[in-house]
C-alpha cells in the first residue's frame, strides 16, 4: 500500500488544563478528499490549527509522505506543502489576481524590481491548469465571492501545495459557484493533491469526499469510506458526542397565543427568498438551518439592516416597515447580533455606556441632556440582575470575559424594554457556565412575556430553549416542528440535512 500523504497520530492538546484533543489520529491518502466532521467543540479546528502551525501540539506525531516532520509555525506548514483556505478570505481586494497570488514573494527581475510579466505568465498558466475562467489582470474586488476562493486555491497551488484544507468552502457560495468548486476539486484530486474537507453539509460530503473522519469531544470516533458510512450513522456519531447537553424543560407559554409578529413572503437581495412565519406572544421560536440558509439574514432584514425587496411584516396585526435599526427599535425589536465584538459593543467604552446606548434618549431631557445618575442606576441594576461580573459599571468593556460581554449586549437591549428579542448565536464563543446562565435567561424572558427568535448552529441549544423550531433552506422556511414532537437531536439534524 502506498505511503499516506499525511499521518497524524496520538495528537493531544490542552488549554489551561482542559483537554481539547486526546490521542487523535488522522490519515490522508494522496489524491484523497477526506471529510473532517464533528459538532462544535469536537476539536476539528484545533487539529487543523496544529497541522497548519498555529498551535503546537502537546504530544503526538505528524508524518508527511512517511517522514516525521515538526510543524511549529505557519511557515513550517507551508514548507511541507500544507495550505488552508479560510472561511474569511485573506485577499487584498484592491490588487489583481496575479498580484494577490504572488503577494510577498513576487518574482524579481535581475535589477531587483518586480517581474510583472513573469507574475502574470505564471498566474495565467496556473489558472489555465485549474480551468477557471479568470484573467491574471482581474481586480479581486470586481470578482464574485466564488472566484475569490478560486484565487485562494490558485495561490495555495502556486506554493507547491500537496495538502489543502478547506473550511466550510461552500458557505458563502451560490449553487453555481459550488458546482465550479466541486469540479475543481475533482481536477485537484487527479493531480494527486489531497484535500481535508471540513463541512456540516452532508449532501456535499457524500458528493465529493472519499472518506469521513468524525471527531467528538476531542477524540477520534470513526474513520471509514463514505460508501460504508451512511448518513444516519454520521448524524448519530456527531449528535451523540456533543460536549454540551442542556435539558429541555417544558415551559408554560405565558402569552395568550396571539401572534405578535407575522412575516409573509419576505425577500431581500441578501439570500431571503420569501420567508413566512409567525411568532406568538411569549414564545421562543428557533431558526435551524445550515450557514447561509437565511436564518441570520431574516433577523437582519427584520432589524432594518438589509433592505426588503418584497414581502410584508405585521406587529400586533399592524403592517410595519423597518428601513433602519432605529425603525426596528421603535417597533419594539431588539437584536443580539452574531458578532458581539464587531456589532454588539463599543469595546473601548465603559460597561455603562454600552448598556445605555440604545435607550439613551429615554433617560435624557427635552434638550438631549443625559441624566447620568439615572443612567448609572439603571446600569447597576442590569449588572446585578444579569449577574454580570465586573468591578464597576465604569470598567472598559474590552476587559471583560466573553460571557460577561454577551450579558452586556443582553442588558443594553433589556434596558430598552423590547417586546420581541432576536438572538443570533447567543452563546457563541462563551464558556459553558455562562452558556447555561444565558439559556436560563432566555427562558425567563419568555416566561415574563417577551417573544423571542433564536438562531443557533448548536442544535442542543435550540432544543433546550425553543417552543417551536423552523427549518430554513435556501432563503425559505421549509419545515416547522413543535419542540414536543422532536425526540432527539438526530431528528432535527435530519430535518436540516435531508431536505
Amino acid at each position: 500500500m502506498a505511503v499516506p500523504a499525511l499521518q497524524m497520530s496520538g495528537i493531544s492538546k490542552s488549554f489551561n488544563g482542559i483537554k481539547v484533543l486526546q490521542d487523535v489520529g488522522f490519515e490522508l491518502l494522496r489524491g484523497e478528499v477526506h471529510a473532517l466532521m464533528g459538532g462544535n467543540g469536537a476539536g476539528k479546528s484545533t487539529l487543523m490549527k496544529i497541522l497548519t502551525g498555529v498551535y503546537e501540539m502537546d504530544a503526538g506525531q505528524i508524518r508527511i509522505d512517511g517522514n516525521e516532520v515538526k510543524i511549529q509555525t505557519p511557515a513550517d506548514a507551508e514548507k511541507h506543502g500544507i495550505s488552508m483556505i479560510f472561511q474569511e478570505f485573506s485577499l487584498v481586494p484592491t490588487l489583481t489576481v496575479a498580484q494577490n497570488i504572488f503577494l510577498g514573494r513576487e518574482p524579481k527581475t535581475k535589477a531587483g524590481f518586480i517581474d510583472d510579466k513573469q507574475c502574470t505568465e505564471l498566474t495565467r498558466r496556473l489558472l489555465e491548469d485549474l480551468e477557471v475562467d479568470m484573467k491574471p489582470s482581474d481586480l479581486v474586488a470586481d470578482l464574485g465571492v466564488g472566484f475569490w476562493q478560486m484565487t485562494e486555491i490558485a495561490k495555495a497551488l502556486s506554493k507547491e501545495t500537496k495538502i489543502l484544507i478547506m473550511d466550510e468552502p461552500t458557505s458563502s457560495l451560490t449553487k453555481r459557484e459550488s458546482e465550479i468548486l466541486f469540479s475543481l476539486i475533482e481536477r485537484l484530486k487527479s493531480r494527486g493533491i489531497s484535500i481535508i474537507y471540513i463541512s456540516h453539509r452532508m449532501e456535499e460530503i457524500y458528493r465529493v469526499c472519499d472518506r469521513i473522519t468524525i471527531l467528538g469531544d476531542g477524540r477520534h470516533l470513526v474513520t471509514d469510506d463514505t460508501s460504508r458510512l451512511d448518513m444516519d450513522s454520521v448524524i448519530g456519531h456527531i449528535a451523540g458526542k456533543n460536549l454540551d447537553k442542556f435539558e429541555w424543560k417544558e415551559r408554560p407559554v405565558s402569552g395568550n397565543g396571539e401572534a405578535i409578529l407575522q412575516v409573509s413572503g419576505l425577500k431581500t437581495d441578501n439570500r431571503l427568498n420569501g420567508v413566512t412565519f409567525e411568532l406568538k406572544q411569549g414564545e421562543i421560536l428557533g431558526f435551524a438551518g445550515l450557514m447561509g440558509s437565511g436564518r441570520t439574514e431574516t433577523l437582519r432584514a427584520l432589524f432594518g439592516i438589509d433592505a426588503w425587496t418584497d414581502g410584508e411584516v405585521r406587529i400586533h396585526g399592524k403592517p410595519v416597515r423597518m428601513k433602519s435599526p432605529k425603525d426596528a427599535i421603535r417597533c419594539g425589536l431588539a437584536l443580539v447580533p452574531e458578532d458581539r465584538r464587531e456589532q454588539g459593543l463599543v469595546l473601548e467604552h465603559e460597561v455603562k455606556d454600552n448598556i445605555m446606548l440604545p435607550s439613551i434618549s429615554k433617560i435624557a431631557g427635552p434638550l438631549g441632556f443625559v441624566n447620568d445618575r439615572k443612567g448609572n442606576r439603571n446600569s447597576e441594576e442590569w449588572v446585578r440582575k444579569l449577574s454580570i461580573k465586573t468591578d464597576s459599571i465604569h470598567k472598559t468593556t474590552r476587559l471583560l470575559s466573553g460571557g460577561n460581554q454577551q450579558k452586556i449586549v443582553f442588558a443594553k437591549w433589556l434596558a430598552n424594554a423590547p417586546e420581541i428579542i432576536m438572538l443570533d448565536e447567543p452563546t457563541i464563543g462563551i464558556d459553558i457556565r455562562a452558556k447555561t446562565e444565558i439559556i436560563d435567561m432566555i427562558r425567563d424572558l419568555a416566561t415574563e412575556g417577551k417573544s423571542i427568535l433564536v438562531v443557533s448552529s448548536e442544535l442542543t441549544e435550540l432544543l433546550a430553549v425553543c417552543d417551536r423550531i423552523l427549518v430554513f433552506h435556501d432563503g425559505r422556511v421549509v419545515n416547522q416542528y413543535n419542540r414536543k414532537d422532536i425526540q432527539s437531536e438526530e431528528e432535527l439534524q435530519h430535518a436540516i440535512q435531508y431536505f
Partner: protein
Amino acid sequence: MQSNTSEAKATVAWTRKFNWRQYIVYIAFIVVFAYFAITLNSDGFLTSNNIMNIVRQTAIISIMAVAMTFVISAAEIDLSVGSIAALASLTSALALEHGYGIMGAIVAGLGTGLAIGTVNGWLVTKVSIPSFLVTLGMMGIAKGFAMWITDTAPVPILNENFSYIFGSGDIGKIPVLLIWTLVIAVIGHVVLRKTTFGRRTLATGGNQNAARFSGVNVARTKLMVLAASGLIAGLAGMLYAGRMHSGRFTFGEGDELSVIAAVILGGTSLFGGVGTVVGTVIGSLMIGTINNGLIIMGLDVSQQMIIKGLIIILAVAFGRKAVNK
C-alpha cells in the same frame, strides 16, 4: 476563579497606567508652563499681559479645535476649517461693507461655514467619500472662492462694534476672545459629555457597526459633526476679521494642522471613540505657550518650529498608548 483575580490585578495596574497616560497633556502643560515661568520670569513671561497674549493667540485655534474634537471623536477629519475661516472672514466683511450691519455679517459668516460644513457632511455620508478627501478638496475650493470674490484684495472693516465683539475688544482686562473660547469650550464639553448627541458621536467613532446596530443614525451623526465644524470655522473667520479689522484670504492658512494637533495632543483618539474637549483646550494652550516661550527666549523661527514639532510628537507618543492598548 484564579484567572479572574489575576485579570483583576492586571486591570488595576493597567488602570493606574491608563490614568497617568490619559492626563499626559495636563502634566506636559504644567511642566512646560513651569519651565518657562522659572527660566523666563525676568523676561516677563508671567506678566498678566503676556498670559493674555497667549490666550489671544490661541483662542481661534482653540475654538475650532473644540468642534474638531467632535469630528475626530466620530472617526472623521475636517481639513477645510482654515479655508472656511478665510472665506467667512471675507463674506462677513463684505456684508458689513455693503451695509447689512452686524446681524448681516453674522448671518454671512456663520452661513458660509454652516453651508460648507453641510456640503462636507453630505458628501461624506450620502456619496460615501472619505472625509479626508472631501475636506481636502473643500480646503482648495473654499480658499479659491476666498481669493476670487475680492480678487485677493483684503476687505477692511470699519464697524468698530463688530471688531469689538469679534475679537479685538477687552472687557476690563479680559479679552473678548477669552470669553468666546470659554463659551465655546463649555458648550462643547457639556454637549460631548452630557447629551445624547455626544454619546452617539463617541459610539459612532468607537464602533460604527455597533452604533448602527444600537439604533444610532450614524450618517446623521457624522453629517452633524461636520456641519458643526464648518459653522464654528465660520465663527473663527469672523473672529479673525474682527481682530484684524478686515477680511483676508490668507487668514487661517495652515490652521487645520494646528487644530488637529491640539485635538490629538489633548487626548482625543485619532481613531475615534475617545474624545475630550477640556484636553483639546489644554492642548491648544500648550502649543500657544510653547510658541510664546520660545519667542521670548529669542529663538528664531526655524528653531521654534523644530522644538514645537518635537514636543508634539513626544506628547502624542506618550499619550497614544492610553488609547491603543
